[in-house]
């Protein structure tokens, strides 16, 4: 039902569709209206009142984010009445906010700071309401919560409930005591929180941040006894540029490697390599499950679901703890990397594993938690010592005084630095599925996956649940039991959508044999550790960049990666072999629902 509406914003004629808000109409017409509680990903709140505008014929101002357009509306976004009210509102928000900006992690990347600047707010108009006895919750491995910086926009609350269906954060109390709390105000590490960090990238200020580990990393880098290796996740290379003032979707693989080398990492390696390794293990695991189900007629859990996303893993451990058998037993690429670095890599370069310090550069908050899981010590040491977000990496680059934009491209170091395009696309939702199918189909049939240029387009993009199916025919003798099987696959992202799939499984109505689930909307390119802001437009640009990276590579299938072939020859033996089992696979544990 499209009905054209004409309205006038600041005397400019603007066309809009019925049902659009004034804010949407204004943005389409490139008219700026400031916002704070509004976020494209989330439902309308209309709480902060920063976006108020004047509508002719009305005495009260209206929140443009929440008011639908009407024909012939005449709107002013800049009248003195509007500007005075906005200035008052921002002044009030500042009075409630801990304005120690110089010590804040979000300094220079804070929406309240920008508004205070735009409206020339005098800090002294109102009396500070900050309670200086506030407590910063640092209990979680992943997320820190500083209530003194909260502006009560409820973006985190809406994120946690609408995007993730987790509801770790909620609004408590009312009036002057109103604040954002966990259940019973318990520490974050004691409540049902998946550590996905979506609250962090939706927070306009420094109230929710990732727990930072860069000081530990700088320490390690300065320690001559330590051999410090870093592995960078595929999605970091398409987002890191944003932290250095480059436009979204800039591919900075080479510059990133160069910067990390400058910072003093002994070896700069690629998580893409272990992404390829994951495909070998996970693809084989899937085929073995199918064999057990179809040939041995055993009762195995199908669909198998990916386990690369630690936010998703914790979600299923809490919410569907009786369905853990569906999870692939494979560790995530980060953890495979850690385990390989302190065994295979250590032996190859002749360094005692106790002196190896493994850093992971990730788009993720949950990866920090994952690195600290008790299961993740299969090398005999903590496999990954420190997890950094893309934002922290960006911070370290600035802190090192590196002129990022001017850097010459560097090359990943060898041994666990070579990767295929299949490893790259792990960055985007659908990537693991696509990479797995490229390899699994070829193992089974000896032929390339039947999609043009290996691009499995049905599983790409931001649609909430994506499906594809493949019919196996003329399989190699070992896999002949798959002849004629039409296998269905699904991909989803965002825990709200994960719930849909899980409920299908609970109801016994899940038609898929393999499902990819990522905790964050868009997959890792929209991860909780990515640069702020992140919205669909930016997700798309990062996504396009990663598919460009894949398309530009000669090597596009995990099983053809020479370093992968080498690691099996020299060390692991074969996928799902004894060593793989010990080092690359893990177990999950049921957790409380509440």
């Amino acid at each position, binding site marked *: 039902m499209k009905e054209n509406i004409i309205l006038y914003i600041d005397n400019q004629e603007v066309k809009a569709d019925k049902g659009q808000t004034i804010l949407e109409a204004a943005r389409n017409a490139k008219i700026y209206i400031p916002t704070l509680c509004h976020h494209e990903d989330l439902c*309308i*709140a*209309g*709480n*902060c*009142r*920063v976006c*108020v505008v004047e509508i002719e014929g009305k*005495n*009260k*101002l209206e*929140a443009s984010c*929440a*008011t*639908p357009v009407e024909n012939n509306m005449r709107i002013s976004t800049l009248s003195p*009445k509007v500007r*005075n*009210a906005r200035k*008052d*509102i921002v002044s*009030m*928000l500042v*009075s*409630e906010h801990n304005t120690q900006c110089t010590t804040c992690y979000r300094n220079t990347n804070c929406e309240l700071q920008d508004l205070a600047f735009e409206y020339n707010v005098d800090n002294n*108009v*109102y*009396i500070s*309401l900050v309670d200086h006895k506030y407590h910063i919750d640092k209990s979680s491995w992943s997320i820190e919560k500083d209530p003194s910086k909260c502006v*009560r926009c*409820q973006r985190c609350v809406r994120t946690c409930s609408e995007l993730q269906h987790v509801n770790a954060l909620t*609004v408590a*109390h*009312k*009036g*002057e*005591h*109103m604040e954002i709390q966990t259940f019973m105000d318990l520490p974050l590490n004691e409540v049902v929180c998946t550590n996905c960090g979506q609250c962090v990238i939706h927070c306009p200020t420094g109230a929710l941040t990732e727990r930072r580990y860069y000081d530990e990393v700088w320490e390690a880098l300065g320690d001559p006894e330590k051999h410090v290796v870093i592995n960078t996740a595929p999605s970091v290379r398409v987002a890191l540029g944003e932290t250095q003032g480059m436009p979204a979707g800039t591919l900075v693989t080479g510059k990133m490697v160069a910067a990390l080398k400058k910072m003093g990492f002994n070896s700069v390696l690629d998580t893409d390599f272990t992404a390829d390794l994951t495909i070998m293990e996970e693809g084989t695991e899937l085929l073995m499950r199918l064999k057990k189900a179809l040939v041995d007629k055993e009762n195995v859990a199908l669909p198998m679901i990916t386990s690369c996303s630690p936010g998703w893993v914790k979600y299923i451990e809490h919410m569907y703890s009786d369905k853990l058998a569906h999870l692939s037993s494979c560790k995530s690429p980060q953890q495979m990397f850690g385990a390989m670095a302190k065994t295979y890599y250590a032996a190859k370069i002749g360094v005692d594993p106790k002196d190896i310090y493994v850093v992971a550069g990730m788009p993720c908050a949950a990866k920090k938690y994952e690195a600290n899981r008790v299961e993740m010590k299969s090398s005999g040491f903590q496999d990954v010592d420190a997890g950094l977000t893309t934002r922290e990496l960006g911070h370290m680059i600035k802190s090192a005084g590196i002129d990022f934009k001017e850097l010459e491209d560097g090359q990943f170091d060898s041994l666990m630095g070579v990767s295929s395009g299949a490893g790259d696309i792990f960055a985007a939702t659908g990537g693991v599925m696509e990479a797995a199918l490229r390899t699994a189909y070829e193992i089974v049939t000896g032929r390339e996956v039947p999609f043009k240029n290996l691009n499995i387009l049905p599983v790409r993009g931001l649609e909430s649940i994506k499906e594809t199916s493949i019919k196996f025919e003329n399989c190699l003798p070992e896999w002949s039991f798959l002849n004629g099987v039409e296998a269905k696959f699904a991909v989803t992202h965002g825990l709200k959508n994960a719930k849909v799939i899980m409920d299908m499984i609970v109801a016994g109505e899940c038609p898929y044999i393999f499902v990819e689930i990522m905790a964050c909307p868009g997959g890792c390119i929209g991860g909780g550790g990515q640069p702020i802001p992140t919205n669909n437009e930016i997700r798309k640009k990062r996504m396009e960049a990663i598919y460009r990276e894949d398309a530009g590579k000669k090597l596009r299938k995990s099983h053809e990666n020479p370093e992968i072939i080498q690691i099996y020859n020299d060390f692991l033996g074969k996928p799902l072999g004894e060593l793989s089992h010990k080092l690359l696979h893990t177990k999950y544990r049921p957790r409380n629902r509440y």
Partner: protein
Amino acid sequence: MKKVDIIFSEYTCEPYAVFKKIMKREKLEIIQELIQSGLRGRGGAGFPTGLKWKAANLTESDQKYFICNADEGEPGTFKDREILTKVPRKVFIGMGVGAYVTGASKGILYLRGEYKFMVAELNKEIELFHKICKELNFDFQVEIFLGSGAYVCGEETALIESIEGQRGEPRNKPPYPTQAGLFGKPTIVNNVETLVSAMMVCNMGAEEYQKLGTSDQRGSKLFSVSGDTSKPGVHELELGLNVADFVEEYGDGDTKAVQVGGVAGFCVPRKDFEKAIIGQGSTTGGSTMLFNSTRSMYRVLINYLEFFAEESCGQCTPCRIGTQQLLKGLKAVKNGTRPPEYLDQLIKLTNTMKIASKCGLGQSVGNSFASIVQNFREEMIY
């Protein structure tokens, strides 16, 4: 000033005879009668009742809800409590007629949590009311929903959120409840007294009802009188009365100020008694508090502000922070940490709150603040 006795008048005929009589009339005729009567909502916002019913009548839906707002929480207001204990039947008749006119099949009496003691008696009346509805072949069921004590839940959309099991926070409007209210269905929310008045209009006719009041405000209404008065309690008075007459009747001879319309209303100082009409422009919630010269208006205002800072739902900036700033700022002026001129900054702030807050709560806080600070400035400073 004319005292009236309509609302609490005794039941004179068999139970629900009036209801049966009204239910024989055409829906549109009833709506027309209400519009003509000029009856406005008695909860405080003063929206014309007939128009609200008409809007709900015009909205098509498989399900509509009719809610009676008995979340009486305005400080100094206790009229709905009186109605519900003395003449609950009139309330249910009002609900029944409203449901009939608007096409609602489910009714909810949203009762203030502190009024739990009434539940047993009210349920007895509801049982009888259901029996009558059945007799009339009229599909309408009423149940009681107990509030949990938040003042803001008196705001109709916050009330709806509260029934849905959410935090009691006002919604963005539009859509208005008559378009999409409880569980997204068209919903009519009327104050207790409004329903009784609506029933009275239907019973006595708009023409008769119109004889009461002024062109601006028709009919009579209940006033909760408290404070420094010799006659505290609920009194039914013809609308359009001026404050001087009111003080003459209810004051203790030393009245220096009257708070009209509860803490969200205005404070009228002695010099304005003659010209001030109670509830000018729209009707009021009906809370009237009298203060004599022994009272500190500073303490009175601090008390109001502490109430608002506590009872704001906290979601929108102007209300959540504004109420705290008014409270802290007033204290700062009193104790000398801010200059007296800071009061003007605070009055400017009340203007922002009035035009930019999300709901009536934040929008009306400035009324009492500005009127008290402007009229009793010395008391605020010294």
